[in-house]
């Protein structure tokens, strides 16, 4: 049994990490941050990955400023404020890596505490043992989560199990579209149930991020993203306490929940934009960021 687990661990570290597009993306953060130089970093989840074209933003901003502007995305799917904090800690708050602006794209309650965290990913890619006290204090309040985090830090196979599962299950014909549709239904219900069970939104992780950004002299800009519902005229409510915290910290808050011209034909699903939608939104985003830059 031990031999089987050992073999799995070796395969995960040597093969799977190299095969996975996401993992390669995470492992390339440091290099990308260096290449970014003094540019604009977009941090977020899949809404950012599929919604922001850094080349368009860089070009638009560069044209407006009359100088070359670099931009790149640093995303982890289904991540929220807790993970973004550690992406910034591990990628930018290092000597010699100072982006001009970090843009965090969020929707609904992404800025609030209590959302699910993909623990294995945070443990393997975005934290070191130095971060553990902070992780335990702010991000993972339960004993089970903390144990999972510690195990995930040491055992890459366990940390990467979501990826391994996905890769294996993709061998089932029709799995991907089925899983996407199933996730939509279940996620909507669970999100509604979680929101109902949560008495009020708290923002401990957001305050921590704002404090560290101030310490590191990093300018942050929070952008409320246009989901399909928001684009169709029913925008999700803005997290007012979150917004107040951002503005009180002297950071910028841009409300792009409604963007002219973004219709259902420009979305792949309830959240993610297609290529044409990405081009339109990226141009609008660049326009909105001009002042912040």
């Amino acid at each position, binding site marked *: *049994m031990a031999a089987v687990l050992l073999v799995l661990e070796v395969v995960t570290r040597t093969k799977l990490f190299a095969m996975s597009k996401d993992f390669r993306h995470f492992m390339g953060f440091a290099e990308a941050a260096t290449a970014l130089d003094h540019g604009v970093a977009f941090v977020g989840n899949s809404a950012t990955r599929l919604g922001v074209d850094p080349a368009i933003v860089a070009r638009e901003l560069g044209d407006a400023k009359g100088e070359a502007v670099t931009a790149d995305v640093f995303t982890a799917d289904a991540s929220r404020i807790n993970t973004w904090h550690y992406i910034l800690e591990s990628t930018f708050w290092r000597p010699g890596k100072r982006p001009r602006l970090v843009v965090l794209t969020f929707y609904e309650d992404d800025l609030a505490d209590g959302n699910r965290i993909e623990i294995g990913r945070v443990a393997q890619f975005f934290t070191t043992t130095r971060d553990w006290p902070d992780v335990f204090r702010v991000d993972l309040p339960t004993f089970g989560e903390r144990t999972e985090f510690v195990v995930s830090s040491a055992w890459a*196979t366990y940390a990467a199990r979501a990826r391994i599962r996905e890769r*294996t299950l993709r061998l089932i014909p029709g799995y991907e579209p089925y899983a996407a549709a199933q996730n939509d239904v279940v996620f909507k219900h669970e999100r509604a149930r979680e929101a109902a069970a949560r008495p009020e939104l708290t923002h401990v992780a957001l305050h921590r991020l704002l404090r560290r950004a101030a310490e590191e002299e990093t300018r942050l800009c929070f952008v409320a993203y246009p989901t399909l519902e928001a684009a169709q005229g029913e925008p999700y409510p803005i997290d007012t306490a979150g917004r107040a915290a951002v503005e009180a910290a002297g950071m910028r808050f841009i409300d792009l929940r409604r963007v002219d011209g973004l219709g259902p034909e420009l979305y792949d699903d309830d959240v993610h934009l297609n290529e044409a939608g990405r081009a339109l939104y990226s141009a609008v985003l660049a326009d909105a960021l001009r002042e912040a830059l």
Partner: protein
Amino acid sequence: MNYNQLSFWIFYFTVLVAYWRLPHRKQNTLMLVASYVFYGFWDYRFLFLILVSTVIDFIGGLGVAGIELPAGRLRRLFLILVGGALVLCSHVDYPALFEALRRGDGGAAALALPRRLADFYVPIGAAVACAGYGLALPRLYALAERRRRVVFLAISMVANLAILAFFKYCDFFIASFVDLARALGARDVSVGVLGIVLPAGISFYTFQAMSYTVDIYRKETEPTTHLGDFALFVCFFPHLVAGPIMRAHTLLPQVLRPRRLAPGAFEEGLVLVLVGLFKKMVIADNMAPIANAVFYRFQDGDAGGMSGGEALVGLYAFAFQIYGDFSGYSSIARGISKWLGFELVVNFHNPYVAVSPSDFWRRWHVSLSSWLRDYLYIPLGGNRGGKLMEYRNLMLTMLLGGLWHGASWTFVAWGFYHGAILCVFRLLRVKDPAPSDRLRWLVRVVVMFHLTCLGWLFFRADSFRTVMEMSVLIATDLRLTPAALAAAGLIVFHCAALFVVELFTDGENALGRLIRAPWPLQGAFYSYLVAMISLFGAEQAIAFIYFQF
């Protein structure tokens, strides 16, 4: 604290290490404390209900057997109850109290203590009930033997059923009454439900406590005079919240006698625990989203475009979810009990290879079906008194069995459905196929599996509207769309291997046989289980379904 959470295992192994270093009496004390701590993790206030059930059945069992408790012992028992009510149910804000004491802040500590009269309603009620019962007991002891036995039995039954009725069914009955009144035209009826929180496992421990008094009444078991041992019998933590429901004559002697770790018990326990975790984390928790995605869409009125094939596969997923969930719990309960030197009854025998409804109930939740048979069906007359009486008794037993599962009309309908198919099979005198007749056996297994799934539709659906819509869709549009095939693929991937193993080992009962298999086979099996649990266990730990029953 669930079996699928690491915190449980740390708790359990701490108890286990201490347990085997202690002599028998102290082992029992440790287990009693551990069981109360385990239960208290859900909601410590409900420990008071377990105390009430324990004390009433302890006195009741002795009363039925004609053993009088001396006044001093009675006083101590009542003091335990009233003290328990004060500690557990008088709205002390314990976190605030401990924090205040840690800081040495007397004022804050006082604020954490109960101050209003309403905070003391439960302790006052307990004191009044104890005083009344204490005054009545000498008269009850003085009754003629036959009468005394009946009276003590009745007190035990009424008390347990009252606890169950109030905490599990009160809101259901209120809501049903309001619905009925409105249906009859009384539009201005507005009785609010009480919003009572359902204590975990209440149906299990009340049924177990009741069976103790009944067994003594039937002279099938001897009462114990040791309160601690009896309390442990009621709340033994490995099976406290979801069974199996143990009979006094099976579990109580194990509590009373010194225990030892039998040869092979550790290995058997390990197989049971691993298989149980696999069933829960790999099968049940991965089947849940497949089933939920289908049922949520019907619930939301958003099932347009779904084919009957997709709905059917969602229903299959629920069938495997509930089997994995419940038999997984039973398996873990048996495994961890073995490590403590206890043997719990086998609760599942490959239920999905049943060939008839009665065969199904010999295989599914055996401890409940045998409980219902022995304490309800047979006392009602069983199959004595002609066919009509037999069918009536079957229907009544299954209706109450359905209601036992949950306070909802869909559960009652589930019980009715199972009662009906039991009656139909008996009416048609459908005989079980001979084991050698493979083809007939296979056809009957497939038919019975689908009859069972139809029952699960009532069990899982939120309303009769969902039952109707899903049934109609399955019956009229059995297209196997790519989504249905993908979901079916997921079911096969997660469930097939274990079902094949179970088919050859007779389910939960004989998985221990694996420990006698050649080591390469054992190694492959353990590796498969561990790899699947580690890599394919659902990321979100879901509470066991049967905790709510």
